[in-house]
């Protein structure tokens, strides 16, 4: 077999086993004496629990609640914050909150136990939307607070905004709203827990095995090492398996502590949609000062609906605020972010992690300003691009050469943008739209250095090399990427490199598989391990382990959010062309063009797959993926009423990958998994606005919402 080179196109190592149905997911695992579990959940959004009366339990059945947490344990899941309770006790704060866990041999019996349990509530008024939370409807949700602002931050750049607005010729204030989005990972959430000696072992579908361990150990008051997490082949995640698996693992661990038999909990599809985390809905208000045909300042108020628990929301909100000026060097800005507590299911990680909401809003706002100035939106946006060394909203600087002009030129030519932009005009039924976006790679600020301190290890056994990291394959292709990096450095065939699913008792913690950090950070660690291994190749069997090293010269103050928020950005440009059926408001997308600068594509086939998927997911977010919440209940609870795009909905895409090797990444690569989600939505809505000749301020926009926009305008 030939040595693998970094530019070879590789068939994904997991492709065949998944396509053939040979891969084993957690639902496929069976153990001797295994029991099943089913959750008893809150049916009220905000209420005191008066009583919980389960039916008489048949032999061999258990009902586990907060009362089963031992005295040395604490009823909290340690995500980023620790406020999400493992079991509701005394009150419930959202529909779907776990109250108890039934465990026993028959799922049919478990279902009847859940159905026949009587929970008596004293119902209180809830807050469900950002506006409800601003109005503190029903009183503050978080104990000890005076309002429903759960977390807050601001960033400022340039002069005092009051003086900026004073000298403006024109001020444009606009409010944008984005909705919930459901992950719809192909495989639903699931886990099995069991004992092994004095340890507890999880087999679980997840992105971050070390997160699960950290999150649940406190429930029993035991050291994290006594919880061993073995990631099972994971059928998609998109952020929906970053922290949410903890919500399954917590109750299972408490049950295992009492029952001592293997227990399996698998969510049905409806359960997984109705009772799981979503993307944060947002309300974003921009007020911009325009002078002499130029944008001189923007004030932004950014509200995210966090749901009933903080969990990871403050970090999501931070990323939202840090991306709120998009790819533009707006000279004066003042941005405030508010994370609002509501009685909806907690919002959590979702591809883009807070950035897509503000990027959508700023893109639309910039297009609207351009229209008022009589300039083509593309030209107006180009005139304000950030450049290398340019100041970011956190008073940091852009590390890399910004190549958006080159990227736009490529897709503008391919799509014939300028001719179509002129010809289609505004309100002709046809439109072409454009958007620019970026995504800061890896954890914000000094998080990689201060919080994660990632480790990765390479083991040599004869001619084989084994990758030992906590990072996971979830469908994105990371097993192939890491094996390719190792093989290319070592100049050996990729077939000689193994990368088994991680087991926290065997591998070092390379940090969560999130934040577009895997290739950039963990890939770099493996590259460094492989470089040393190559030099020592003749030494027989040995291991090489490396720790993350933070490059010098990128200051960050986490208490004030000042400095270099990211060590590098991925950059993107997208163009979407569409036609609208005037009779039915059905939209036909005629063309999609994108260019992405990700440093270097480790594998073009995988990157192409990510672009195709990310862009379509973003178009679904903009057009059809509508998830409504009525009084705390999600209205769309199945895949027939919450629809995601099929291959029939959008045409084949043109894609371009801009090379711009990144100093601190493996072979020059940066992160890209989230970037490709961050912008097609705004290009679509820009095109739609031009087609219908009306401005719109919210997504998603299925045909009935387009009707509303046309009527309200």
């Amino acid at each position, binding site marked *: 077999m030939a040595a693998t080179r970094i530019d070879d196109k590789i068939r994904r190592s997991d492709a065949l086993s998944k396509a053939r149905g040979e891969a084993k997911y957690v639902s496929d695992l069976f153990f001797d004496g295994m029991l099943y579990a089913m959750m008893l959940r809150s049916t009220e959004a905000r209420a005191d629990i008066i009583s919980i009366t389960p039916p008489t339990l048949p032999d061999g059945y258990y009902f586990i609640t907060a009362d089963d947490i031992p005295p040395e344990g604490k009823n909290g899941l340690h995500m980023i914050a620790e406020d999400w309770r493992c079991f509701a006790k005394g009150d419930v704060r959202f529909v779907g909150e776990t109250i108890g866990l039934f465990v026993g041999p028959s799922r049919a019996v478990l279902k009847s136990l859940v159905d026949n349990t009587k929970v008596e509530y004293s119902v209180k008024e809830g807050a469900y939307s950002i506006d409800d939370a601003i109005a503190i409807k029903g009183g503050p949700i978080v104990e000890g607070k005076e309002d429903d602002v759960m977390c807050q931050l601001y960033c400022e750049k340039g002069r005092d905004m009051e003086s900026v607005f004073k000298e403006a010729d024109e001020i444009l204030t606009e409010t944008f709203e984005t909705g919930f989005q459901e992950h719809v990972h192909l495989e639903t959430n699931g886990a099995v827990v069991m004992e092994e000696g004095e340890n507890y072992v999880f087999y679980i579908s997840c992105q971050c095995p070390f997160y699960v361990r950290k999150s649940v150990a406190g429930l029993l008051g035991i050291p994290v090492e006594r919880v061993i997490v073995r990631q099972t082949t994971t059928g998609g995640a998109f952020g929906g398996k970053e922290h949410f698996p903890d919500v399954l693992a917590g109750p299972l661990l408490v049950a295992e502590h009492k029952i001592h038999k293997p227990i399996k909990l*698998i969510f049905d599809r409806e359960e997984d949609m109705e009772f799981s985390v979503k993307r944060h809905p947002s309300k974003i208000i921009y007020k911009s000062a325009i002078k002499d045909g130029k944008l001189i300042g923007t004030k932004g108020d950014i509200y995210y609906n966090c749901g009933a628990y903080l969990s990871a929301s403050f970090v999501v909100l931070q990323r939202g605020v840090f991306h709120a000026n998009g790819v533009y060097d707006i000279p004066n800005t003042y941005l405030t972010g508010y994370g609002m507590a509501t009685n909806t299911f907690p919002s959590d990680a979702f591809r883009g992690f807070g950035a897509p909401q503000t990027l959508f809003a700023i893109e639309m706002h910039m297009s609207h300003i351009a229209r008022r100035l009589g300039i083509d939106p593309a030209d107006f946006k180009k005139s304000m691009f950030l450049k290398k060394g340019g100041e970011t909203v956190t008073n940091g600087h852009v590390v890399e050469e910004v190549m958006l002009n080159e990227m736009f030129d490529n897709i503008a030519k391919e799509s014939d943008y300028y001719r179509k932009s002129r010809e289609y005009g505004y309100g002709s039924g046809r439109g072409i739209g454009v958007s620019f976006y970026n995504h800061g790679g890896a954890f914000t600020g000094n998080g990689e250095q201060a919080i994660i301190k990632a480790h990765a290890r390479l083991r040599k056994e004869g001619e084989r090399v084994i990758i030992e990291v906590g990072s996971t394959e979830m469908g994105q292709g990371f097993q192939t990427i890491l094996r390719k990096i190792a093989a290319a450095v070592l100049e050996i065939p990729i077939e000689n490199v193994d990368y088994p699913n991680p087991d926290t008792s065997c591998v070092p913690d390379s940090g969560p598989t999130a934040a577009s950090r895997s290739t950039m950070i963990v890939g770099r660690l493996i590259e460094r391990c492989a470089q040393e291994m190559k030099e020592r190749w003749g030494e027989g069997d040995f291991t090489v382990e490396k720790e993350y090293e933070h490059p010098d010269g990128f200051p960050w103050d986490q208490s004030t959010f000042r400095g270099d928020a990211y060590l590098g950005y991925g950059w993107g440009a997208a163009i979407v062309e569409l036609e609208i059926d005037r009779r*039915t408001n059905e939209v036909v997308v005629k063309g999609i063009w994108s260019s992405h600068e990700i440093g270097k594509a480790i594998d073009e086939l995988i990157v192409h797959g990510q672009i195709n998927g990310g862009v379509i997911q973003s178009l679904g977010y903009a057009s059809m993926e509508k998830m409504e919440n009525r009084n705390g209940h999600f209205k769309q609870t199945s895949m027939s*009423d919450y629809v995601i795009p*099929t291959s029939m909905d959008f045409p084949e895409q043109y894609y371009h990958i801009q090379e711009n090797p990144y100093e601190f990444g493996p072979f020059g690569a940066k992160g890209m998994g989230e970037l490709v989600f961050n912008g097609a939505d705004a290009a679509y809505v820009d095109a739609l606005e031009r087609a219908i000749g009306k401005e719109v301020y919210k997504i998603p926009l299925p045909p009935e919402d387009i*009707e509303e926009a046309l009527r309200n305008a």
Partner: protein
Amino acid sequence: MNTCYIPENLTEALEIRRKTHALPLAGGTDLMVQAKQGIGINPVFKSPIMIITGLDELKGIRVEDDGTLVIGALTTSAEIAADERVFYHIRTAASQMGAISLRNTATIGGNIANASPKGDLPQPLILLDATLTLASLDGEREMKVDDFITGAKKTALNDDEIIKEIRVKPVEANYLFYHKIGTRKANAISKLSLSAMANVKDGLILDFRASSGAAGDKVKRKREVEEMLIGKAVSDIPSLKDGFLTAWNGILSPHAMPTYRRESTKRMLSYFLDKISEGAELGIIS
């Protein structure tokens, strides 16, 4: 525990049906979903069921001597979509139902018996005045599809009957229109569907029909409203159109049809009438 019968022929099926009132299950694409209990739990049916998928007497499409099209109740949507003898509206609706796997399994009889207001096939069948042959041990009776479906999820099927076949007499039409607005472009449930047809000869509208799906508790069609155009000259369409559209709007359920669906229906019908009025080429108006 479910009780399940699997008859070998129609007579046996009718005997079981009379004796047990077991619910006929054909393709199962509706009933299996409704009976679903969750992962790892057997489906639960509220009454005994009878799997009739194997009854060959109820399968296939034929045309009788007088031109009447007869579709066996167990004929699948895929088979209907592929058969050019089937009227345009029915064939097109069948071809846009769910996904390929569903169309290979779902039957026309099941789609009618399920009586969902969003069902794809009842709408064109009602447009074409299709009838059903209902079989029981006492013999057969014939009924219009429009009368058979009495409301959302409600039918006139007796508890000892089975839908045997669907009959559509030849209908003359030279302008045809069908449009389904789904939640997306494939594998979608109907938000709204509309069929329309006209038979125009020598500048006169000899027949005009329309039917709206997902428009209320059942498919909406009204002969009195259609008659506003029948017998009239094509050249009168511009002066008749507004009155017709208002009258059509009046038969749609206000609850089930919020502004968007109501307005889209109006715009599509208006478009269809404009095309006839303009003397567009005969055939399918798309």
